[in-house]
């Protein structure tokens, strides 16, 4: 870690605020019709994403899911290309081909946010296998939801990682629901971390609202992975404030007061209070908040000013070489 302890704390605070702010703006411009498709916000889960990614090196790998905005920001991605991606611009991190569910920035080790539930897990195991075969000490971290832990891909990916002692960290963000389905209805164990028992894998449950706790438990897992100790399953108990995706209000209403209970333990507020208790000036934190706002606004300007892809770009990136263009598009 190149940061001073204090720098690192402020960086954690900063990344959480960037996520919070990014999501606020994303929701607003989606409502305003600027973002097509669906939008799944990460608001409420910031401490999990940032706490985990801060425990990684930039050259470590990270794979995520449909709730894709927070992870790459947590991993240190620049905001402009992420915002441009939401708008489908050619300057987007995926050249406008991925959109909101797939914000992935390979330049910071964010190797893919994938919107098919569970599908990132085998891929993350494979990145860990690659790191191992190459003799590097890189590790691979995979974010997935409580719902994803019911997919066969979870089982196969974790088992593979375990029998091959791969340098992988499987981080389940248990936010209590898969769309409308409460965990308790889809899983018959108390903690998803219990499932590690099926793979002889170390595991931990952590308070996903407490960024230091997340960082600590992930750091331990990263250490184990880097030194040949194999994978870990971590479950972070967290919560998304919004409905599953925008315009799915029906699902939210049933949750009643639950949201308020969780808001009372807002990860950013908790951390702010902790930093202030540690003697950090609230002005310094306010400045970070202002910077985050400004950075997101700057990203939005960048995104808005960017061009859309050219129609023929649709035929790039299926393969390394561009596909032939069909006659009807070339005249």
């Amino acid at each position: 870690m190149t940061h001073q302890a204090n720098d690192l704390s402020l960086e954690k605070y900063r990344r959480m605020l960037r996520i919070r702010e990014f999501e606020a703006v994303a929701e607003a411009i989606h409502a305003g019709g600027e973002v097509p498709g669906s939008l799944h916000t990460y608001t409420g889960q910031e401490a999990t994403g940032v706490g985990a990614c801060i425990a990684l090196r930039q050259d470590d790998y990270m794979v995520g899911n449909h709730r894709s905005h927070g992870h790459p920001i947590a991993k240190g991605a620049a905001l402009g290309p992420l915002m441009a991606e939401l708008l489908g611009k050619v300057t987007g991190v995926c050249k406008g081909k991925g959109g909101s569910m797939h914000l992935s920035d390979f330049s910071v080790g964010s190797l893919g946010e994938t919107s098919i539930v569970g599908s990132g897990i085998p891929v993350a195991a494979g990145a860990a296998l690659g790191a191992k075969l190459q003799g590097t000490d890189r590790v691979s971290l995979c974010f997935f939801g409580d719902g994803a832990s019911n997919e066969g891909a979870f089982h196969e990916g974790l088992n593979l990682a375990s029998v091959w002692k791969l340098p992988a960290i499987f981080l389940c963000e248990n936010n209590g629901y898969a769309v409308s389905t409460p965990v308790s209805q889809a899983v018959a164990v108390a903690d998803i971390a219990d499932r590690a028992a099926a793979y002889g894998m170390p595991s931990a449950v952590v308070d996903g609202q407490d960024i230091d706790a997340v960082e600590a438990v992930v750091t331990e897992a990263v250490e184990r992975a880097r030194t040949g100790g194999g994978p870990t399953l971590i479950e972070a108990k967290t919560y998304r404030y919004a409905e599953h995706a925008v315009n799915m209000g029906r699902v939210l209403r049933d949750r009643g007061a639950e949201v308020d209970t969780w808001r009372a333990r807002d990860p950013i507020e908790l951390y702010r209070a902790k930093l202030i208790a540690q003697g950090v000036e609230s002005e310094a934190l306010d400045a970070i908040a202002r910077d985050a706002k400004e950075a997101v606004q700057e990203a939005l300007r960048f995104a808005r000013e960017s061009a859309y892809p050219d129609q023929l770009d649709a035929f790039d990136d299926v393969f390394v070489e561009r596909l032939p263009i069909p006659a009807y598009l070339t005249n």
Partner: protein
Amino acid sequence: MARASFIEAIRQAQMEEMQRDERVFIMGEDIVCNVFGTTTGFVDMFGKERVRDTPISENGFIGASAGAAMVGMRPIVDVTISSFLYPAMDQIMSMIAKSRYIYGGQAKLPLVIRSCLFYGNSNAAQHSDRPYAMFMNVPGLKIIVPSDARDMKGLLKAAIRDDDPVLCFEDGNCWSSKMELPEDPDFLIPLGQGEVKREGTDITVVAVAGGVPIALKAAQRLAKEGISLEVIDPRSLVPLDRGLIVKSVRKTGRAIMVDPAHLSCSVASEVSATIVEEAFESLRGPILRVTTPDTHLPFSPAIEKALYPSVDRIVAAAYKLVGADHRIPAQETV
């Protein structure tokens, strides 16, 4: 009769069949909360045993539908978006399609797997699949692809009553179509019967799912210019009403396929191959395919739409065909 949407047609079909037959039940992810509106009121009517939320385990619950069917139930499985069928291909291809055969007819698998074709609105490549063609290359699965609310209701009811497994693909681009829906509880459209959606004399257009409304619009436009399209909707892909298609081409001598799926090994390809095999002598020109080209669907709204079949593309194909012909005055080809 009241005008109702495609989604409402699905709801009515399921409701009527669940009322009629206790063995029918429905399961899928988040169907109790009824995301798309196809199960409105069902929990109150039928209870949570028969309206069953599942964990996110497509292979598991689709496989479970096979087991339940084999012991006498008639499951409807709601897989929301057809891209989520891939994780379940194990059970669909190896068990559902093959069990009856491999056990020499001992098993019967009366089940319906519903999923929607969710393309054209920036859902990106992982959510935009239109995979019906690949299920045609493995025997044992019946397939329906209704293109309007009435067909939806009649075909889905028939599918639920069918003793074989049926995949039902619901094109999101047809959701808004509103029609009068028959209230007769025994209103059924038999699988395997295509329909001439518009009669015509110059060119046969075989259109699938969301391709049908587009073909009908193209027919309207071309009618003004003196070109008469006959639009055929096969409605079910297995069994496929090859006879109806071939008969039409024998009359018109020309054919255009409209299929929102990718080009290669598509339904468009299959129907084209059937026509050239069975009606070659009637053909006055090539058979043209208007499909999505073999590239993925990008998220960006700037470049997604032009990849799908469109009225313009059908019109251009029609001009190409009649321009090459002498019966109809040649037109400038596009």
